[in-house]
């Protein structure tokens, strides 16, 4: 819930994990709920010793006094009974009944859940069918039926509410237990000869306890509300006994001449349930953060840009010029410099590979170009991206939108998650067309089928109305490429488009991309971790490491004679067909975390030829020749 918004800063204490109670208090709304609840509970606990009149003593002469009259703080009811006293005693009853119902439901429900989840098989399905049956009844209706059978009365209402809440516990606990009973520690306990009961209560129960507490804390408010409801209907507490619900029920008859008699107990139920719900949400967020919904921010339409200086406009003649691009992710007070100053330029029709290990910032670079990096947490903090002669980091959302899918198109990695699962692939291609061209639906459909044929999807007209899940991975990626081609882009940004595919399909998709870019003269920025793929497709290659380009040059030259030690190691990792004896060296060590980049060369820690001067100052991307550059103080070889 959005309570998180208000609470995030406080719950983050540096160093040492805060206690669960600390976390709960740090949640402002939960703390408020806890305070209200504490006041109510304290009042209810000391009720017997408070100087209050007897709640059941009637005094007809002083009936229906307004609050404050004749020493009655909250007035009197239709029999002249003191409302303040009745309110506190009634609250006592309501809380007690609600808590008891919760405990009963938790006990029985958890037991059912534990046994069903642990036993599995027929025991499980028999128990859960029973639970399903209980849930097949509308919530309150079953409680009514039970009260009908048992007869009206507070205790019977308590049982009824407990029974209808058993399924919540049974289902939640069964789910967790089912997962746990396949885990190693449970097997270990079983193999060590422990009985089922010992395993269940000794090993499984302690791990399930948080879920039980969470379910209790989120249902107890409901149960207080519903038992009050039954009393309100006259089916729960019977006179002279009173709970909040029956007070409200009595007050209802006096709605017109003495509204305070029903307003006051209603307010108390409201305050009580709201306080409990706030605390319950807080407990859930602390004990079971996975259930915290909507806590993570959803990205807006474009990445936020916050630049101090804007680089000068580049010379024209390129489809894309990137200067000093910086993109950061901020989580809490850590700043991850995913892209730390990237320079890149593509001329029309050129295919450039951007290569690096995962985490090197190559995808973030690609997404930053049209500001598709999610904000929060991403922010573009510097540089300039020039497309169509304009600085796109300064563009308005409408200009950006025209560019996206128009002059510049994207193809993403996993075609299963990047296509919308609920629309036909044809509709998705049509949408790409109509977002940029004034086509009628019919025209767009014809064009879309043409595009699907272009990307060599067999029987394209029939596949038009297929859903993504009905196509193979390779077919899905072809659909994505068709979408990218829809508006004849000058530049296609392909972010690992073949990584999720089989090797044979990979080759087909690469060939397709190559043919299409040659036919149409589109430039391609191809992001990959695979040098083999680069050598098949790209004219030039740029190697990224820890958010910066460390080497750039014509593909053949770089492959032949890498200048940066990192490039050399990366190339050594590529298996070569027909050389089974070649050692595939993984590069020792890990890239530095981008929130704590060392001074100097980021690769120095892993570099076999590093010297002290590698760890000092900023190392520039120096030109080796007209078309090669390297960010290294001692390049492996001179310019070729």
């Amino acid at each position, binding site marked *: 819930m959005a309570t998180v918004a208000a609470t995030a800063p406080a719950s983050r204490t540096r160093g040492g994990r805060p206690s669960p109670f600390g976390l709960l208090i740090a949640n402002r709304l939960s703390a408020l709920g806890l305070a209200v609840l504490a006041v109510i509970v304290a009042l209810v606990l000391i009720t017997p010793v408070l100087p209050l009149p007897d709640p059941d003593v009637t005094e007809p002469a002083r009936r229906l006094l307004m609050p404050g009259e004749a020493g009655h703080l909250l007035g009197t009811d239709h029999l002249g009974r003191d409302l303040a006293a009745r309110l506190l005693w009634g609250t006592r009853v309501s809380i007690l009944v609600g808590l008891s119902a919760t405990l009963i439901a938790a006990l029985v429900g958890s037991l059912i859940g534990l046994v069903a989840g642990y036993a599995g098989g027929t025991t499980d399905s028999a128990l859960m069918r029973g639970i399903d049956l209980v849930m097949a009844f*509308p919530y309150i209706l079953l409680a009514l039926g039970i009260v009908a059978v048992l007869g009206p009365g507070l205790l019977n209402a308590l049982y009824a509410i407990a029974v209808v809440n058993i399924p919540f516990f049974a289902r939640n606990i069964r789910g967790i237990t089912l997962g746990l009973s396949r885990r190693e520690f449970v097997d270990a306990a079983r193999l060590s000869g422990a009985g089922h009961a010992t395993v269940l209560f000794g090993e499984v129960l302690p791990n399930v306890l948080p879920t039980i507490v969470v379910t209790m804390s989120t249902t107890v408010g409901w149960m207080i509300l519903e038992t009050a409801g039954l009393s309100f209907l006259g089916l729960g507490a019977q006179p002279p006994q009173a709970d909040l619900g029956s007070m409200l029920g009595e007050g209802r008859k006096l709605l017109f001449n003495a509204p305070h008699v029903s307003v006051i107990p209603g307010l108390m139920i409201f305050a009580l349930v709201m306080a409990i719900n706030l605390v319950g949400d807080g407990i859930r967020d602390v004990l079971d953060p996975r259930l915290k919904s*909507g806590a993570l921010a959803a990205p807006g339409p474009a990445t936020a840009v916050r630049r101090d200086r804007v680089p000068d406009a580049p010379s024209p003649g390129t489809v894309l010029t990137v200067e000093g691009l910086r993109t950061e992710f901020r989580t809490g007070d850590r700043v991850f410099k995913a892209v730390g100053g990237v320079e890149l330029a593509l001329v029309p029709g050129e295919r450039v590979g951007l290569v690096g290990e995962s985490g090197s910032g190559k995808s973030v670079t690609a997404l930053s170009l049209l500001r598709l990096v999610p904000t929060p947490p991403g922010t573009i903090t510097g540089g300039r991206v020039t497309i169509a002669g304009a600085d796109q980091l300064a563009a308005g959302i409408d200009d950006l939108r025209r560019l996206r899918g128009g002059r510049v198109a994207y193809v993403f990695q996993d075609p299963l998650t990047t296509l919308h699962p*609920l629309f036909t692939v044809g509709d998705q291609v049509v949408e790409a067309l109509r977002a940029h061209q004034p086509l009628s639906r019919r025209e767009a459909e014809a064009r879309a089928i043409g595009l699907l044929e272009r990307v060599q999807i067999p029987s394209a007209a029939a596949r038009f109305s297929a859903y993504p899940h009905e196509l193979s991975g390779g077919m899905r990626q072809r659909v994505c490429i068709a979408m990218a081609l829809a508006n004849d882009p000058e530049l296609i940004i392909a972010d690992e488009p073949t990584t999720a595919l089989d090797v044979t399909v990979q080759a087909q998709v690469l060939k397709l991309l190559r043919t299409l870019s040659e036919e149409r003269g589109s430039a391609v920025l191809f992001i990959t971790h695979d040098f083999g793929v680069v050598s098949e497709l790209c004219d030039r290659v740029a190697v990224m490491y820890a958010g910066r380009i460390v080497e750039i040059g014509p593909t053949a030259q770089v492959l032949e004679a890498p200048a940066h030690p990192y490039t050399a190691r990366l190339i050594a990792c590529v298996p070569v067909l027909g050389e089974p004896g070649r050692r595939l060296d993984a590069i020792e060590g890990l890239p530095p975390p981008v929130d704590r980049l060392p001074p100097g060369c980021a690769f120095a820690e892993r570099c076999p030829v590093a010297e002290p001067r590698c760890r000092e100052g900023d190392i520039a991307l120096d030109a080796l020749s007209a078309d090669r550059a390297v960010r290294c103080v001692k390049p492996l070889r001179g310019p070729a």
Partner: protein
Amino acid sequence: MWRYVGKRLIATIPILLGLSVVVFAMMALIPGDPATAILGSYATPENVARLNRELGLDRSLVEQYLTWLGNLLHGDMGRSYALNRPVADEVFERFGATLVLAGASLLLCSVLGLMAGIAAAVRQFGWTDRIVTFLVLIGISTPSFWLGLLLIMLFAVQLRWLPASGMFAIYGGGDLPDLLAHLVLPATTLAVVATAVIARLTRAAMLEVLRQDYIRTARAKGVSERRVVYRHAFKAALVAVIPVIGIQAGFVLGGAVYIETVFQWPGIGRMLVTAISTRDLLLVQGGVLVVAASYVLFNLLADVAQTIVDPRLR
């Protein structure tokens, strides 16, 4: 698609049978001897035995159930002794009124809940989001029966804008505007909790969906943000929200018991409360059964709706 609907339809049969067993068993479990209760001071052993035979109570429970089920399928739910009329007649007459109330509430809570949830998600952490979150918190914590009383005080007593009770005006009523005027307060009251639940869930579902890769794809295609939110994100969020709307049907049908009592709505809920007080158990049995069966059908509708939205389920 239709095959799936057929399958789901068949799958509801065991659920309905299960419901009938539970409802029958509940009544069979009631302590005490019905014949003795009915005969009162005439309960001589001979009379009791004769009445038991007439009522079929001397046979096994299974036999009794099958007879009861057979009668039920012929539309015979027995006779209400308090009202002295067939249970089925009374139940279906009352059920119509409940369906009007519950249907209006369900429509209201779906529309408002979805709108509020989307608005909050799109402006996450903004003021709209905070206001919606606050209202949701109030909504799920408010006792609906109390809210009903407050609304009556405000709109019927103080402002005199709307009628306080009943389904139609006693004199000169009976047309649609009259019904709608009577419907506003109870339907709104009944919808409050469900609206809050649906809004909360819609918000969460939208936020989850807006983080998905296919939303990024839509933006990368140059689709307008409106379309991204209302077409791409909303449709995907709906898959998660529809079953919850189905569940809310149960809360609305159940909650109708309170609201009908507060607003004197002539529905099945108020009938049940009265019948429980007068121990008119056959009437309770019939009422519970019909409402429970309608809930099963509501859930079936939700299932079908979900299948229409999500082709992967077909």
